[in-house]
Structures are given as structure tokens and as C-alpha cells.
């Protein structure tokens, strides 16, 4: 159990900046998810917190104590490596039990805890195997069990479920969430899967281009993405982004116009979630286009409507599918419109 604070933390590899000054406070017991596309610096942040990489600037505080100069093994944290990092000469059981061996926990207790941890990741029957004799997903679960067997101050998990099949991933996700609540151990979790982030996180930190883009609860980030990058990253399918301009309180596009509460600007991006759009009679619709594709997903049908050069995704009832080429009018739910600046991509500050 510990709180973590990053103060102006940054990392350069030679002349390449992997992480620009990051400020972040993580309260005790929080499940924090770092979310971002490949190469945005997620692993780098984790490795610096773990003490495997030296920061180029800034401080790392655990429980208010500066740990920059503390060796990794003295920081008392458990980490799941993105590449698993299993000990190839040890069996699964020995791998999972290694942290306990170091703590001189012997015999029966060690065996019991190894079995417990292995059972949690559904590997209880494979303790005698060597890592080379496991599938990728099984290896990943060994890595996870090796972390879960401990009771550290802090869990660091670098994409711990990335290699599991969809079903097992859902099960493990729920288990991790439950376990973290139970242990109340502060957890920093890296993923580039936004569904994982939304479901697991108390708070999400979105990273891109070596910078924090937004920090917030999943609901906040979903409801008010701070810029077009986040808007286009969160949600499945993500928010529709339509380019146009704002004139006299209306977003104007060749295919129509819609009333918005934003100042005029020559270039603007309108953001609309697929579930916040309804089909309407073209005569009194906000925007008019034609059906490009119609896909039945299961509990809904996803329509792609072509508006100018843009494809707009719309979620409708399962039986709401339309033939390709049909003229379709779109009406945006009031109050669910997002406007971003066309130049910077940022959401303009709210006018009071």
C-alpha cells in the first residue's frame, strides 16, 4: 500500500525524448491505467517507477519519500514485464515461488502460496513445466502469478493480459479487478486496449507523443475527451470526427449544419458518439448523407453513413439496418455534441 507521485518526470534516450515532463499523483489503493498507442512511453514510465531505468529529469516519490536513488529491489514492488521475463531454467512453480525463496519463505507455506497463485491464473496443473513448454498466454499468466504471489507496496503491470484469448482475458480482467479491490494495493497498469482501461481503471491516464493527454475517471474521459486524439481513441467504435467550421453558433458542413454552443472559428471538428446520433427524415435532419455499409453486430446494428468525405458510424436498433445507397438524415442528440478546435485539436475551454 502506497501512494505514488511523479514530479516532472522525463526520459531521453540520447536525443530522443521518450517521455516529457510528467506530473501525476496516485493515491493509496488506486487502480491507475496508463493508456496510449504503441511507443508513447508507457513502459518507460513503468520502468522508471520500478527503478530499472534512470529518469533524465524529475522525481519519483513513493509514500512521499523520494526513491530516485533507491535500487529496484528495495522499492518493494511487483512487476509483470511486457515480455514476461520468465526464468527459463526454472519450472513454472519455481518461477512463481522465486520471490518467496528470496524472502526465505520455505517449505509448506511456499508451496501452498505457489499453488494459490497458480490457481488464480488457472495454471495450477502446470507447475512442473518449464517456460519453453508453455504457450504464449500460459507464459504471460506465469508472469502474472509471480507478481500476485507477493504483497508488495505497489503492483506494476505492463500489458499483463495482451496475449490471452478473448474469453480468458475477460475472466482474468474481472479477477484482477476483484483482487485489487480485495488487496487494496496501489496498481499501475499499462495497456493499449481501451476496453481494458475503461473496465479496470479508477482513473485513466492517456499518454501520447511522450506526454499526458488527459487524466480522469473512465466516465469523465468518455464524456469529455480533451482533444481529438482522445476522442478518436476511446470508445468502440470511437467518436465520429467531422471537419467543418462554426458560424453564428452553428457547425457548418457541406452536408448540413447543427446548432452548437461554441464561439465561431474557421476550422472546427465536430465530435459525435455513434450512440448519440439518431436517424431522421432528410428534410429536417442536421446532416444528410447516404448509407455506405450496414452491419448487424448483435445487440445493435452499425450503420456507416457517408457525409462528404467522412464516414460516420451510427448505432441503431438491431432491425434498423438500411440498404446501401439509401439517403439518410442524421440528428444529433442535443447536449451530446463535442466541438474541438480545427487547428490544435483541443477542446476549447468552456465559456462561463
Amino acid at each position, binding site marked *: 500500500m502506497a501512494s505514488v507521485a511523479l514530479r516532472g518526470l522525463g526520459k531521453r534516450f540520447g536525443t530522443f525524448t521518450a517521455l516529457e515532463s510528467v506530473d501525476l499523483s496516485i493515491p493509496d489503493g488506486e487502480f491507475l491505467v496508463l493508456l496510449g498507442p504503441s511507443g508513447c512511453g508507457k513502459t518507460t514510465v513503468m520502468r522508471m517507477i520500478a527503478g530499472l531505468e534512470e529518469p533524465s529529469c524529475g522525481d519519483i516519490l513513493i509514500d512521499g519519500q523520494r526513491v530516485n536513488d533507491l535500487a*529496484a529491489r528495495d522499492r518493494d514492488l511487483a512487476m509483470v514485464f511486457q*515480455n514476461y521475463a520468465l*526464468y527459463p531454467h526454472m519450472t513454472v512453480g519455481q518461477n512463481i515461488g522465486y520471490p518467496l525463496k528470496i524472502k526465505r519463505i520455505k517449505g509448506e507455506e511456499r508451496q501452498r502460496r505457489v499453488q494459490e497463485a497458480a490457481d488464480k491464473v488457472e495454471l495450477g496443473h502446470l507447475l512442473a513445466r518449464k517456460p519453453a513448454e508453455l504457450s504464449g498466454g500460459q507464459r504471460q499468466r506465469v508472469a502474472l502469478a509471480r507478481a500476485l504471489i507477493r504483497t508488495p507496496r505497489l503492483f506494476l503491470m505492463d500489458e499483463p493480459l495482451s496475449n490471452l484469448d478473448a474469453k480468458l482475458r475477460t475472466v482474468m480482467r474481472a479477477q484482477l479487478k476483484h483482487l485489487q479491490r480485495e488487496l487494496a494495493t496501489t496498481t499501475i497498469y499499462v495497456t493499449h486496449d481501451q476496453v481494458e482501461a475503461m473496465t479496470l481503471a479508477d482513473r485513466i491516464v492517456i499518454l501520447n507523443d511522450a506526454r499526458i493527454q488527459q487524466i480522469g475517471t473512465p466516465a469523465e474521459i468518455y464524456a469529455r475527451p480533451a482533444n481529438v486524439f482522445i476522442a478518436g481513441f476511446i470508445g468502440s467504435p470511437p467518436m465520429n470526427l467531422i471537419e467543418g467550421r462554426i458560424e453564428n453558433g452553428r457547425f457548418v458542413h457541406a452536408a448540413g449544419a447543427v446548432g452548437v454552443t461554441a464561439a465561431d472559428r474557421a476550422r472546427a471538428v465536430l465530435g459525435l458518439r455513434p450512440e448519440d446520433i439518431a436517424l431522421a427524415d432528410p428534410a429536417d435532419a442536421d446532416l444528410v448523407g447516404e448509407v455506405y455499409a450496414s452491419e448487424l453486430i448483435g445487440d445493435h446494428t452499425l450503420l456507416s453513413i457517408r457525409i462528404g468525405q467522412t464516414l460516420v458510424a451510427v448505432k441503431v436498433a438491431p432491425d434498423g439496418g438500411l440498404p446501401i445507397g439509401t439517403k439518410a438524415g442524421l440528428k444529433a442528440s442535443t447536449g451530446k455534441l463535442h466541438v474541438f478546435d480545427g487547428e490544435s485539436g483541443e477542446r476549447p475551454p468552456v465559456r462561463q
Partner: protein
Amino acid sequence: MRRSLPARFGLALLQMAVAAFVLIPFFWMLSVSLKPTTEPFAIPARLWPEAPTLANYVTAFRPEFRDYFLNSVVVSLSTVAITVTLGLLAAYAFSRARLLVITGLMSLVVLAQMFPHSAIIIPIYKMMRAADLLNTYTSLIVAYVSVTLPVAIWMLHGFLAKLPVSLEEAANIDGAGPIRVFWEIVVPLARPGIIATAVYVLIVTWQEFLFALSFTSSKAMRTLPVGLNDFIGQYGIRYGELMASSVMVSVPVVAVFFLLQRYFVAGLTAGAVKG
């Protein structure tokens, strides 16, 4: 890539030719060792003795041979133990160091192995004499360690540099200190490299002649290669016994090599890291 049939045939032929070229002297050694004293230079020369005999072995396996053998074992095994231990520690430091100064030293180590033995033997001899170490095991062991260590460091460095660093990082996170990481993670994983290096050092020291001849004066201190000299007299060479001794000198090294050759094939780190 699959080669065409004639290409594979040609390649196999070439391999056999190379193997024959390398093996013929050994075959000749064996053959001569089994010939009766009258036969080695019979004309026409025979590839294989008409009446093979072990008589040469019986005479060659004299009490001196056993002393020489023991000397060789003591000197070689001590050298292997010291060189591999020091080499492993040095190579680990070199392979994990981030400071340019230290990695630069590695090139010096590589440079050190370029000096021919004949160039350094006199200075080392003088040092040994000054230290009053001539005609002792120590003089040979020290000399052998100094000539084998650079190559050993270089070989082990190659193995250690290929071990994924993240295994050591994982052990650190699990709470292991540097010594523990070295013994429980690095050494077991470097085992093929350690064995290969040990065998190399063993072969080099087992057959070394120049240092052994220069540094030992008494018969009691001689090693096997020097001992072979006994059969080369002023008035003639006793080929049969010489070759029989040579066979007996070679057998332990060949045996070690065959026993351990499966370790030379690496692949111990399978399954450690993704990708």
C-alpha cells in the same frame, strides 16, 4: 533455403574431403602406435599395421608417464578453474557495464590475446625467476591463466551479452541482490558458454609445450607434452612409443569434448522472453 541435389552432393563431398584432411594425421598416429618397432618405416608403407600390437602402449605407460599425467591434470584443471571464474566475472562486468571507459577496456582485452606466446615468454620467464617460482605448478598456472584469460573473457562476453537483461531485472524486482542474480540467474543460463570456454581452456593448456618446457627443469614437474620429448633422443626417435603416448595424451581431451559437446549447442533461454 533448400539447395539443389548436385549442390548438396558437392557440399557433402567437400565436407568429407576436409574431414579426411584433418583426420589423416590422427589416423597415422594411431596406426604407427599399433605397429611393431620394425614396421613404421617399412617400404612399401602400410596404412594399417599387418600385425597390430599393444607393445608400444605397455612401454609408453611407464612410471614417468603417470607423473607427467598427474602434473598435466593439476596444471590444466587449476588453470581451467581460475580462468573460467575470473573470465566469467570480468565478462559479466563488461557485458553489463554502461560506462564507455569500461567497455573500452574490453578492446584492450581483445588486443591482449594478439601477442604471440613466443613474444611474451621471455619477460614472463624473467618475472617467474625473480619471484623464485620457476619449476613449480604456480609458474605454469599463472602463465596459462594469463594467456587464456583474454580469449575466455571474449568468449564468455559473447554468451552473456546475448542473455536477455530483463531476466536480471525481473530478479531484481523479485528482491534478489546482485550476487544472487549472478549465481541463480546468470550462471545457470550461461552454462553452455561456461562449458565451451572451460573445454577451450582445457585443450589449450593440456597441449601447451613452450611454457612447460621453459619453466620446468626437473623431470618431476614436467607435463605430458614435454614428456613426449623423452622419446626423441639424440640418435633417433622411437616413433611407436611416441605415438602410443600421443594417443594416450589425446584420449582424455577427446573424451571430454565428446561428453560435453551437446552443451555447445545453446538454446537454454528458450521461453524466457516474448518474441
